[in-house]
Structure formats: structure tokens, C-alpha cells
């Protein structure tokens, strides 16, 4: 089966760079899957999960991104994320604590952080796409 090259980059690091079978990306208007030969798309992202699958659709990695951009062309998919965590390194208690601390605050920055933290919890709890 064909593969597509996938890059996941954060400002500090190149996090993932390999040939994969499929990627699911959390686009602003909804998740979309990218298979080899996908048409050209440029999309901004919402906080959510980036799922990376191997050639036979086995889940390779799951990341949480807090937003960013994706560029897709038939051979390549690039995700520019603001911050990236691998899903299984996120600790739920610390996120819940963060939410508690942030929920009282009124500033825009805090609200943004809160939305990201909440999205993290959702991402942790959801089991969509784990098996296809």
C-alpha cells in the first residue's frame, strides 16, 4: 500500500517525520483523515488529537496539539503545531488541577489556556479512531 510522508513540527522541535499510512488531523471545522494522494488542503487546527496510523491502519502514535496549521498535498502532510504532547504522557490529575486554577480567571490568555486544557481532557477520554 502507498504511504504518505508526515511531518509534525513544533516551534522547538521536529517531533515526527516518517512515512505513514494515514493521519487524522483535527481541522478547525472538523477532523479529517489524510490518506496518500489526498488533494491539496491548507487548514488551521483546533486543539485536539493527531492520530498517526501505519500502512495496515494500526495506530502508531497519538498526539495532542493545542492548535496550529496543516498543509496537505498528495505526497506529504505537514502539521505545524503550537505545542505537542504525546497522548500517553499527559497526566489527567495535573490537567484537572490546571483547569481548576484557570476557571476563575477572566483574562483572554487564561480562557484560551482553559479551552486547551479542557480539550486535553476530552482527548484523553475519547476512544474514537483508536481502532479502524
Amino acid at each position: 500500500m502507498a504511504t504518505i510522508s508526515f511531518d509534525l513540527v513544533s516551534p522547538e522541535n521536529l517531533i515526527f517525520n516518517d512515512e505513514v499510512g494515514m493521519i487524522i488531523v483535527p481541522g478547525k471545522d472538523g477532523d479529517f483523515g489524510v490518506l496518500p494522494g489526498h488533494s491539496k488542503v491548507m487548514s488551521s487546527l483546533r486543539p485536539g488529537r493527531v492520530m498517526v496510523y501505519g500502512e495496515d491502519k494500526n495506530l502508531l502514535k497519538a498526539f495532542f496539539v493545542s492548535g496550529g496549521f496543516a498543509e496537505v498535498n498528495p505526497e506529504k502532510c505537514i502539521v505545524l503545531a503550537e505545542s505537542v504532547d504525546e497522548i500517553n504522557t499527559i497526566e489527567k490529575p495535573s490537567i484537572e488541577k490546571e483547569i481548576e486554577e484557570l476557571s476563575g480567571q477572566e483574562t483572554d490568555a487564561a480562557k484560551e489556556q482553559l479551552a486547551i486544557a479542557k480539550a486535553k481532557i476530552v482527548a484523553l477520554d475519547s476512544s474514537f479512531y483508536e481502532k479502524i
Partner: protein
Amino acid sequence: MPSLKDIKTQINSVGSTKKITSAMKMVAASKLRRSQEKAEAARPYSSRLEEMLASLASSASSGEGIIKLLTGTGNDQNYIVLPVSADRGLCGGFNSSINRETFKLVKSLKSDGKNVQIMPVGKKSRDFFNRVMKDQITESFVDLNISNTGYESALKVSNKLQELYFEGKFDKCILVFNKFKSAISQEVTQQQLIPLDISDSSKEENVDDSAAKAIYDYEPDEETILKDLLPKNVSIQIFKVLLESDAGEHGARMAAMDNATRNAGEMIDSLTLKYNRTRQAFITKELIEIISGAESI
């Protein structure tokens, strides 16, 4: 003529200076490796962001709001200049070349009748411009400590910059920084940050496949993406510059301390020679005194 003891003290003090400079050299070398890695790790993001912007920018026309980061305000009367220096000295000409270049730039802009503000990044340039052009400093950033805090501190600079831009405080923003060429050489570079200057490498590549790039689908739509992308680009560019300057600082310090260590070594050699000569002169003198004393009996 200095006494033997004076020379000995001098040798000792140069010796301890040498120890310090060679220790600083080692520290700089290990820090250099780390910050060089960081600078390299940041490169993929900024280069890909530039690619994306280049393919988007062709379709953007002048407009209001955030798009102004790309198209400019239509004026070029007010400038803001950001000299990016280190927080600490003892790194050769690293800081002074930044200050000199910025000073020249500001002078020449002023002689063209422009208004110039300065926003120094780093203690060394802040201190310098505090002395020579205090009234033009709008804001300064020190102790950013980019190698530890990372992207966050770049955001601080970029947010402030954008705030000023949208208040209409300036029309063009120019960064003056040390570009990291290799461990021993840095190049003072000027980069126009706002409005975005896409005339460099990314555009040349774009010419060949502009037809191919034009057929992207945009989600949600072109303008929304551009609105997200442009402020991000400003932050990323600043981040990249800060990292490069950080790597350059350590490189410059390493080279400077290497020189200082070598000079101290040479100095010790020549002082030791002087010490031995003086000692020999004393011995000869004493011998002559004894012999002539013996002869006169």
C-alpha cells in the same frame, strides 16, 4: 626594575586569569552545542511556515486588520528597530558590533527624516542605547534566557510588537541581530520583520511551482488562515532570531575566551623569561660584588 617578587605576583595573577578564561571557554563550548541544537531544531518549523505563507501571500491583497502585517500600513515614516544582543559581555565584538550597526542604521534613517524608536533586546544593547539615545527607547527586554524558556519569551516580544503595530505606533520593524554562521563566525544581519518581506528565498522557489500552489483548498478559508498565520510568523521569526543570536553569543564567547587563554599563555611565557633574566642578573651582580670584594683584600 621590578623586583623578583613583583614579577612572580604578576605571573600568578595572569595564571589565574588564564584559568578563568579557559573555564569560560569550556562552558561556552558546551552551551554552544546545546543552543546550536535548539536553533537547528527550530529550523524546520520556520522554513515550513515560510513556505505556507509564500503560497498564501500571493493571493492576499491590501486590507485592514491583521493582514496589515503582510501588506504594511502604506506608510514608511515611523520605524522601530530591535537590536538583539546578549545579556552578558566577555564575548568579543558580539555586542558592540550589534550596537554599532544599529546606531548607524538609526542615524541613517533619521537623516532621511524618519521617526525611529528603539526596542533593545538584551542587557548589553539596552545599556548602550540608554546611554546614547535614551529618549527613543520605547521598551526593552532583558533576561529573556531563550535557551531555557523557549518559545514563551519570543511570544512576549512579539505580542508587544504587534500591540504597538496595531496602535499605529510604527510602520516598519527591523531586526538587527547576529546570524549564526559557524561556531567561530557571526554575521550582523538586518531583517525586516513587519511588513513581511517575502522577496527572499521562499519566493524564488515559489515561482517555479506557483501554478501548482494555487490550487490549494483552504479550510476554513484563506483569510482566516492568513489571520492566524501572520501573527504566528512574527513570533516564530523572533524566536528563530533569538535562538540564532543565543548560539552566536556562545560561539563568540568561546572564540574570545580561546584568544584570551592563548594571550595569557604568551604573557606568562614572556613574564617567565623576564623573571629568569632578572634572577640571573641578580646572581651575576652578586657574584661580581663577591669577586671584586675578594680582589680588594
